[in-house]
Structure formats: C-alpha cells, structure tokens
C-alpha cells in the first residue's frame, strides 16, 4: 500500500480495489458499501500518527506531516461523499462539468423573469405537500408512515440515478439528483420531528 502523493480530483481514484472502473459511465453508480468501508479503513490506517512517524523518507515521498494529514483528510472526504448516494451523484456530475449546486440564472434569465431550475411542477407540489403533512403531524405514527413513503421515494431516485448513469444520460441524472436532494431534506425533517416541536429544515 502506498501513500497518495497528491490529492485527486475524482473520489473514485482513492479506492482502486473496490471501485476499479472508476466513476460512471465506466463504473457503476451502485457500490458495495462494506467493501468500500473496508478499503477505506485499510487506507486510513496508514495515516495513524504512530505509523507516519515510522515512515522512511522514501515512503513519505518528501511530504511533510501537514501534507500527510491533508491526504488523510482528503481520503475521509472522498469516503464520506461516496457513501452517500446524493453526494456521490453530485460529485460524478461535477467531474463531468455539471454543477448541480448552481442555482443561477445568467443576466438574460434574470431579465426574462420567471422561474428557472426545477420545472417539474408535479414533483414540487408533492414536495410541498409532504412538508405540510410533516408540519401538521401530531403523532409519531404519522411520521412513521411518512418515513416509509419517503424511503420509497429515495429508493426510486437512486434507481433512476443508477439507470441514468448506466446510459450516461447526464440530464436525467441531474434531474434525479435534484429530486433526491428534496427527498433527503424531507428525510432529515422527519428524523428531527418530535411531538409538539417544530421541524424546521435547517442547513
């Protein structure tokens, strides 16, 4: 096992064993979380301070302690992002030049007025309705059934992402990613719900 000399732009390249094919379309969107975790733990163990101190100059490849710590942080970041389907999808798209987080409109759009972004009115209405249902819920049992429904939505979005990336349909993947973000927000609102308390979406 060798310490990475430089930080990498693709999170996939940190895990050559589990993800040898890299990001979609070559590799699959789905991954084996257990295998990924095992490889991550193995890689991360190299950066244990006690081990770092024992490294020879050659093994260190001229890197300072700070640089080595940065590598360790990079690895953590890559692992965290890949574990979460939403973050994974955002990362894949970003590396293909598609910024899901961009929310802008250029000058022309601003002067022409009306809404940009998600134009899927049906989905937006459903999102609003679910938020309102959470707001109106008074008992844990209602939250539980909303959770069940939402888990299905998340599952469906991940399926959509898997098939979109398999066929390299990036527009479809972007739309599914955006939708998955809405469902993820709802998921955390449901998780934070407590009887008699509000469930704000904070981020």
């Amino acid at each position, binding site marked *: 096992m060798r310490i990475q000399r430089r930080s990498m732009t693709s999170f996939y390249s940190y895990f050559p064993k589990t993800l040898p094919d890299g990001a979609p379309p070559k590799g699959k969107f789905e991954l084996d979380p257990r295998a990924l975790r095992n490889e991550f733990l193995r890689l991360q163990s190299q950066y244990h301070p006690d081990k770092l101190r024992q490294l020879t100059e050659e093994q260190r490849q001229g890197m300072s302690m700070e640089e080595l710590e940065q590598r360790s942080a990079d690895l953590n970041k890559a692992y965290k992002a890949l574990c979460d389907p939403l973050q994974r999808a955002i990362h894949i798209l970003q590396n293909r030049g598609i910024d*899901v987080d961009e929310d802008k409109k250029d000058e022309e759009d601003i002067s022409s*007025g*009306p809404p940009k972004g998600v134009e899927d009115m049906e989905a937006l209405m459903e999102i609003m309705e679910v938020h309102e249902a959470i707001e109106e819920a008074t008992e844990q049992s209602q939250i539980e059934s909303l959770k069940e429904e939402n888990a299905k939505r998340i599952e469906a979005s991940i399926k959509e992402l898997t098939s979109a990336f398999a066929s390299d349909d990036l527009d479809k993947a972007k739309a599914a990613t955006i939708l998955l973000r809405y469902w993820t927000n709802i998921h955390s609102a449901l998780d934070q719900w407590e009887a008699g308390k509000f469930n704000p979406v904070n981020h």
Partner: protein
Amino acid sequence: MMFNRITRSAGLLARARPTTTAVMSPMTPLAISRRGYHEKVLDHYNNPRNVGSMNKNDEDVGTGLVGAPACGDVMKLQIRVDDNGVIQDVKFKTFGCGSAIASSSYVTELVRGKSLAEAGKIKNTVIAKELSLPPVKLHCSMLAEDAIKSAISDYNSKRKTKNPTLGAEAAETPAAATATA
C-alpha cells in the same frame, strides 16, 4: 426529554404565535446568531409575516410554487388580486433555511398593495440588500423573486382563460412575456 429547556421555550413561542409554528425554529436566538444571520433575517425568521395558504382554485388567487435545486428549499407564495389588478392579500409558506424564510416573508410585505406590474418588477437584489444576505444566500432572494413572478404568471394565465381579451394586459408582466416568447 420533551421538556428540556429548548423544547419548552419553543413551546412558549408557539403558543404566543400559533400560526407561525410551521416555519419557526426551536433554536434560541443565540443559537441562530451563531449561524451568522443578520438581525433583519432573524426578525423575519422569528416573526414571519403573512404565513399561510389560500385556496389555489380561487379565481382571484395566483400561486407561485418554486424550489431551489441547490439546497432543496421549497417556497409557496400566493397573491389575491382585485379587479383593478392590485394585490390585496399575500400568503407564503417556506420550508428551508432562515434566509429563504426571511426572503419570502419580506417579499409578502413588499408586494401587498402593489399592482401586478409593479410587483413583477421586484428584483432579488432589493431583497438581498434589505436582508443583507451574504453571497452564499443570494439564491434565497432569487427564489423569492421567482415565487412572486410565478404567482403573477399563474394569476394572469387564470384571467386569460377566463377572459381572453385580457391577454394584452397579462403580457405586460415579464413573466407572461417569456411564456409567449
């Protein structure tokens, strides 16, 4: 567990302002300040104006429903318009961060009593300036601008269907202009 301090203070706030519970946070003002919100944002966040819903099927109601792909916030803004094209009532519901709630709350104050043409000219920069939004939160003000524009556009399209001769009037708003472009 339910009666820890935070929950209790939130409960007090909820009783004082029952209609605003949906968009209020149980966080204490101190906790919110730590998130770095400007006091004007905090004011709208703690006392959101015009929270609520109207019947979207009413003929004099226009509904704008918009979402922010970047953060997953959703905002609903509704206007009730009289026969002279003046906005008589405004309601909003926002599920999102403090800046998104404040932006939509502020917009409801801005557009009440304005004509559709005036309201359609509101720019996100005005909202951002009033609330001193930092660059990372500018999209919240854009979302509020989108919301009012799409509410106007929804109202206009209802009028158009009901009375086609009003088409020219409807086309005055920028929203309708794009729809026909």
